[in-house]
């Protein structure tokens, strides 16, 4: 009997000791692992994790919108005993219950790039200020068009009919920056300004961009300004314009700041793009998890905002007064993908 107790205590000590020595576990769960944006995020997270001695496991959905895989990943992380989860949610509402489960288990959950709905469902959000990103290109476009801005014909290329937050924020930010009154700021497509020819969805890729552009041109072939949700959609829209010979008559603005996108700004396909910093989002996220694991401190949002702003810069070779920007050379240095 005594031998069993002694053995038990010894075993317990060994286990406790090994637990104390175990690395802090963290999880990165992205929407997909094929979009270069998330590839860069993973790079940033991995590098920072290695630097800080954190054991990072990565998961991803199969497609943008694949909520089920993300739910499964969160459950795995909880079972694994992770201390923190970095998440780019595919479905900003549906994932909330799994996130609550994780937080109840003492895990720090940080939303990256795309805020959850409601935003405080996560402990913190590290993201681009997508509204500001839209505003920057809106202001730039208004200044670029000058007097013509009053009669501009605007085509809005959004991402999906489910209207995820990132799409809504950029769309509405652009309109506000341009000077158009918003309807309900929580959705796009309800504005009444006659300058807007229409909205269409692109799924954020070239095929969708081309098709959406063609559809809007069929409604009004005189469109001269296009807002696009991201640079692949912009590239597709450009092909549609090229097909009717109007690629030089139309101004295209976008958001992302990926390297192919910045190259497109340089070559004149895109007029200006708002650049965001996925690598920074991820590495700051890892740092926050370490802070939580070691000191039980949660990250704080940027003052005045309900998320931590990882920054956005306007990239263009045609700067306009009143809108700060960087040129494509600097943009290329900072680009991702």
């Amino acid at each position, binding site marked *: 009997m005594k031998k069993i107790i002694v053995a038990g205590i010894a075993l317990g000590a060994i286990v406790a000791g090994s637990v104390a020595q175990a690395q802090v576990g963290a999880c990165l769960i992205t929407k997909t692992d*094929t*979009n*270069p944006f998330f*590839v860069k995020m993973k790079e940033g997270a991995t590098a920072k994790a290695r630097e800080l001695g954190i054991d990072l496991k990565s998961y991803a959905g199969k*497609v943008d919108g694949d909520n089920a895989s993300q739910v499964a990943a969160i459950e795995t992380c909880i079972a694994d005993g992770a201390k923190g989860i970095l998440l780019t949610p595919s479905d900003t509402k549906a994932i909330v219950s799994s996130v609550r489960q994780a937080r109840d288990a003492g895990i720090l959950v940080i939303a990256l790039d795309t805020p959850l709905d409601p935003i405080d469902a996560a402990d913190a959000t590290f993201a681009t200020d997508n509204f500001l990103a839209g505003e920057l290109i809106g202001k730039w476009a208004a200044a670029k068009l000058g007097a013509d801005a009053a009669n501009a014909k605007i085509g809005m290329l959004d991402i999906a*009919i489910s209207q995820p937050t990132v799409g809504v924020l950029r769309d509405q930010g652009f309109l506000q920056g341009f000077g158009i009154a918003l309807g309900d700021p929580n959705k796009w497509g309800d504005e009444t300004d006659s300058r807007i020819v*229409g909205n*269409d*969805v692109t799924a954020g*890729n*070239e*095929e969708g*961009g*081309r*098709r959406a552009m*063609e*559809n809007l041109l*069929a*409604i009004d072939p005189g469109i001269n300004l296009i807002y696009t949700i991201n640079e*692949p959609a912009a*590239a*597709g829209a*450009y*092909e549609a314009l*090229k*097909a*009717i010979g109007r690629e030089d008559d139309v101004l295209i603005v976008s958001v992302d700041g990926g390297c*192919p996108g910045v*190259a*497109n700004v340089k*070559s004149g*396909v895109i007029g200006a793009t708002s650049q965001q910093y996925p690598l920074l989002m991820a590495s700051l996220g890892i740092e926050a998890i370490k802070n939580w694991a070691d000191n039980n401190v949660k990250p704080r949002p940027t003052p005045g905002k309900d998320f931590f702003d990882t920054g956005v810069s306007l990239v263009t070779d045609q700067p306009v007064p009143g809108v700060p920007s960087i040129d494509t050379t600097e943009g290329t240095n900072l680009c991702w993908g």
Partner: protein
Amino acid sequence: MPPQSDPQNFAKTTGGADEAVVEFDDQKHGFVTGLQHRLHQTPAAVPLIVLILSIVIFGLFLGAKFFAPFALTLILQQVAIVGIVAAAQSLVILTAGIDLSVGAIMVFSSVIMGQFTFRYGMPAEFAIACGLAAGMLMGAVNGVLVAFMRLPPFIVTLGTWQIFLAANFLYSANETIRSQDIAEKAAALQFFGEKFEIGGAVFTYGVVAMLLIVAVLTYALKHTAWGRHVYAVGDDPEAAELAGVRTKRVLVSIYVLAGLICAFAGWVLIGRIGSVSPTSGQLANIESITAVVIGGISLFGGRGSILGSLFGALIVGVFSLGLRMVGTDPQWTFLLIGMLIIFAVTVDQWIRKVSA
């Protein structure tokens, strides 16, 4: 002796009865049965009627803008790629199979064409040939698994879809090759994006390719022995085998041809979007199956015309553009497409009920 005691002769007493059993009398029991018979002969009639009706209705709503040659030929351009993939899908579905890997074959082939040109510096024409060959190879994998290993096509192509798609992402490293780079260095890759105008109508070479492919396949299926064998294999494979059709060879040839056509669609895709993007074509399998089903080709095999799948693709295109121009929420397009599918399958089942 009682007359019926000769057991060998009892059946002969029916000899005096009416012998008109083996006649080919095409009795018509009225308009509905007649319609059923006629649709049985020309299965592509229903989607054609729906297509014409939808063009007329949208034309009435939208007026000259929709009937303009620009808008109508725009629809052709928008459905060109789905139309080509749907032709490949039609071939497979005619054999009572299904191919979920069509989109993956298309995009992987386009990536091979792009990467062989830019990563290895090969001439574009050679890279294109390699891409087409890769498509045939992927098709052959499907064909061998279905024909020789006798695995169900749904399961086989479910697996190969994942495999080809993953290979696509791994090989391309998620890299997109920009349209401007391609235009500069390897314009041949964008060939099918080139266009020509007739009056106000704009046709791309991609549209011409789609129409040619459908025409060639329609001819082959109707007027060659191979085409008859394809229908026979889809209709009743055991009967076909007993009748002397080499069913395994026919099946493999179908999947290889489908792979080739999908790889070709990958080339046309580069022409349409300008760039080589490994994330394209994610929905091509669903969209092609939709076009095939709306086009009246039976999922049970052996019936239908490839023209039907062309009409099916056009119907989806007309609805999409028409509803956009009317200004409806894009969600309505999905709803109507769903209803069209149910309608098409119901009509197919009704046509099948024709019997003596």
